[in-house]
């Protein structure tokens, strides 16, 4: 004959513990990217009259976000041809200063982005973010020859095509 009272308390405690652990209301970790970044691919024209373009791995590129409070720079010490840039969610316009490498040249080009922003709910774990639709991009032309918008929709989806192609002068 089993003495049920002997096993009752541990079984009930274990059951309550499992249920309590399963239902504990902690915020779930956010597992999706929270920021919508645009990706720019840098292309190089082999000569002024050339019609052939190739990916250009910038030797040591510098990007500086020209914010209202303070400018923040990012240096990429390794050769890269594709870069991610974030847009300001506070306004519908932002600027990045850009230089192809840290040593050779002291001049910067400025990339000015004009866009529409769309509020997007990600999840209760991640909260809200903004997605963007690029309207236009203005640039200075010290190193940059031209900029083409390939994909105007900037979301947190990282497997979409690059958004920009930036063409660099042959001299750089």
């Amino acid at each position: 004959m089993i003495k049920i009272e002997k096993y009752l308390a541990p079984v009930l405690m274990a059951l309550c513990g499992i249920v309590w652990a399963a239902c504990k209301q902690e915020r779930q970790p956010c597992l999706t990217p929270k920021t919508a970044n645009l990706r720019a691919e840098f292309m190089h024209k082999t000569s002024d009259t050339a019609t052939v373009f190739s990916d250009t791995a910038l030797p040591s590129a510098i990007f500086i976000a020209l914010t209202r409070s303070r400018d923040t720079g990012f240096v990429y010490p390794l050769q890269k041809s594709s870069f991610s840039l974030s847009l300001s969610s506070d306004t519908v316009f932002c600027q990045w200063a850009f230089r192809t490498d840290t040593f050779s040249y002291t001049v910067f080009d400025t990339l000015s982005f004009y866009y529409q922003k769309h509020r997007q709910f990600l999840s209760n774990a991640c909260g809200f973010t903004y997605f963007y639709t690029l309207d236009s991009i203005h640039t200075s032309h010290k190193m940059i020859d031209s900029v083409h918008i390939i994909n105007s929709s900037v979301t947190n989806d990282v497997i979409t095509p690059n958004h920009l192609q930036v063409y660099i002068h042959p001299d750089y």
Partner: protein
Amino acid sequence: MTSLPQTIYRYIYILTISALFAFSPSPVYAQADTTATDTTDVKVHKKDLAGHQLCVGVDIFNPIMNLFLKDTGGRRYGYEIEANYYLHNEYYLAAEGGWGSSDVNYTDLKYTTTNTFMRLGFNKSVLTRDKPVDWDMMFIGFRVGVANIIRSNVAFTVIDSLWGNSQGTLSQLPPFTAWWAEFNGGVRVELAKNLFAGWNARAKFLMNGKSESFKELTPLYIAGYGKGDKNSAFDLNVYISYAFRWDRKSLHGINDSTDSPIIKPAHAADGTKANKSFPGSNEAIPDTTANPIIKSVNATDSTMEVRDLPKGKK
């Protein structure tokens, strides 16, 4: 003779163990019929002996969990009542309803939702009854649930360490609905006369999780369903319920003094009376020598089966 606390302990133990078995991979079998099966053609007449039962209950699991579900992210609560009515052939019409609320109070997201909900469906008992008045049951069931949700204004902050945080608000929505389908199973045991306790485990599947209202902001918690941003949810209820019964004796011949069915002797095909008596009947002691026809009576569920075997078979 067991004392009342021991009886209560026993029933709690049964409920707990049945809960553990329900989630274990090994199958659970109802009472197996160990008698030999008669393979001859039989004529089966079923008559429902269980009568009417309306069971009204309250969920005690959610109020207990409400006490634990408080943290920095806010507070939530849900309350639930249920009713089921015995229909026929071990099917029960089930209706459940309730209300609840949740406060989301994260650093970057703040809002409140409140909702009422209702579920309609049925339960099917999978246990064989010991006798028609045995209402203990292990059941499976199906429900369709609908919730009416009211969401408050929403305040949110998009945190951006580079360009600076941006804040925004969403205005209150008109009430919107969520609806889901659910499969459930559980156990209910009669602790005392007409007083039941039991649990009900549910697997729920949200059907309109991609609607516009959900896209704008998915409620963190929907009372009656669970986490709103999950397309499937699992839940548990523990019910204490009271049963109202009527019409058992007058309609179906239940002997109230013994809780056993009064089965009147049937007439054999040749016009002789079957020599079998049951509690509540006034028939004589059977004459076992002069009866070529056997009336086999088997009341294993809420119905009585009267099997008329062909002549000459025993």
